[in-house]
């Protein structure tokens, strides 16, 4: 089964689980009210059941054609993709510490310089320019209180 449900099939299987769980929980909210009118659980129940059925049908379709349509991506690009995604996660986790601007400035620099292998000086220049433009537009002009983190750099309006 593990070999059968992979790729797109795994997405549909996940949706079947999600919709069944949400439909199941909908009973706790009350599907109908005393007068027989629709309650808060009605739409989650109906849409949950509908999605479970539709996802199951799509799962069957994808399992049938999976063998015929197996596309392999360049492993190097896939590694780059997950590296960028990991760096994004690191940037988000850094926000409470360094503040929004510093965390995302570092993200731009790290992606440009180390992932995309651009020369260090232009990459640093672009990161600094992007950080300054965002500071000017969002913090100074629009008064958005970006989190300053423990360092308190360039944030909190």
């Amino acid at each position: 089964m593990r070999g059968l449900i992979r790729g797109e099939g795994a997405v549909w299987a996940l949706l079947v689980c999600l919709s069944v769980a949400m439909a199941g929980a909908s009973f706790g909210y009350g599907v109908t009210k005393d007068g027989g009118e629709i309650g808060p659980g009605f739409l989650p129940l109906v849409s949950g059941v509908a999605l479970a059925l539709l996802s199951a049908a799509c799962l069957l379709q994808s399992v049938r054609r999976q063998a015929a349509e197996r596309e392999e991506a360049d492993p190097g690009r896939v590694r780059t993709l997950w590296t960028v995604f990991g760096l994004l996660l690191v940037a988000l986790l850094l926000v409470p510490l360094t503040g929004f601007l510093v965390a995302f400035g570092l993200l731009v620099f790290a992606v440009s310089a180390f992932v995309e292998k651009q020369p260090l000086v232009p990459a640093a220049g672009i990161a600094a320019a992007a950080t300054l433009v965002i500071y000017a537009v969002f913090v100074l002009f629009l008064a958005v209180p970006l989190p300053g983190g423990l360092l308190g750099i360039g944030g909190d309006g």
Partner: protein
Amino acid sequence: MLDNLIMGFGAALTPANLLWCFVGVLAGTVIGLLPGLGSTTGVAVLLPLTLSFEPLTALIMLAGIYYGAQYGGTITSVLISTPGEAASVVTAIDGYQMARKGRAGAALSIAAIGSFAAAIVSLVLLVAMAPPFAELALGFGPPENLAVMVLGLATIVSFSSAGGRLRGLAMAVLGILLATVGVDAATGLPRYTFGDVDLLSGLPFVQVMIGLFAVGEVLFQIRQGAAAPIRARFKDLMITKAELSRSTGAIARGSVIGYLLGCLPGAGSTLASFLAYGVEKRVSRNRHEFGQGAIEGVAAPESANNAAANANFVPTLALGIPGGATTAVLLGAFMMYGIQPGPLLFEEQPELVWGLLASFFLGNVMLLVLNLPLAPMFAQLLRIPYGYMYPLILVTSFVGAYSIDNNMFSVWVVFVFGLVGYFMKKFDLPMAPLVLGLVVGALFEKALVQTSAMGGGDLTIILTRPIALVVFLLAALLLAGPTLLKLIPRRQKETV
């Protein structure tokens, strides 16, 4: 009526009004360019600046921000597949494909031309039919609103490719299911919030859109080996006569659809743009090109959302019921200036009402003059190597999302839905039905609950409402029609 219009142009054509209209259009365009900052935020942020203005001047500037921001959202939809607002989602489908083929300038030009034409059509319709349409809109009850939303969803599902209709339907239902997260509007009961305060107001759909479209697209492009810079010649960025003539019908149909849906309170620009795209995909001679960069796929939804934006003022001005989120903020502005929208407004303050309506036309002329020459220049942004471009897209997407509600929850929503968007692109799952389901989900449930209450729990009340019934049948036909049509020749062959 003509006298009123002449009076309106007289009021709008003062140097001060023209200047502030231009400032509004320009500021709106810039705001619309920033991911997450749409017309609603733009109007709300700049509202305090207008407090010292004359009411008409202030409203003209705020209306300028409204449609300027919509065009700004179109620019990012086309260039980097990042819609600024839900109404621009459908433009990203063909607009972005046109950009990848070096036709970004043409896509942006036709969006400006379509918006301008829609402004003329909607102005003519507003002049001729605003009061009767306001009355008709008043006759639209919950069953009719429910039917219109089902039609919108059916349309978007039906233009998923034949094999993908099931997947499109699944995505639309997923959107509706996700829209049930948060406090139930009818009873105030929190659903699927797991005690998290941020989830009480539901999944924020603008942040979801930024994640799905902007971050999802970036991640997908990285996997594909990064999109090459577009090195189109300057003359290739200009719109051609053939493209203009291909778009004429799409603009006309989009404008009328946009106007009709824009008159309905709550339906708004998003449904209009989706519906116009769906109709065009059915009737266009070039329907096989849809999804791969058909210019009609940009012209129709852009005309529709602009016509709807203008027509949104019908329920706002004539009934005091905002047609959408931005007109709700504008309604607040009306109150601040001591103006009471309602049926008597057209009679009591004709100069203000007709001055504002005339300014839509003037504002759209400015938008056209400003953006036709700028469109090819905006398109030059695509010459920047993607290795430099995508970290900047990521940062502006996240900071834009943060600025909507000023909280980190928005940023995490973008992160999670960025991953979802990547997998949706990887497996070719249609995003538009998911977004529309999420956007209309709350309104859909409200209309469903109200319909149920009207019938004392009996939903068959819909069968007694002729307009709702016809719209529901139309939706059913859209969903089941193509399958039924396929069956007919088979039966004929079998009988032969």
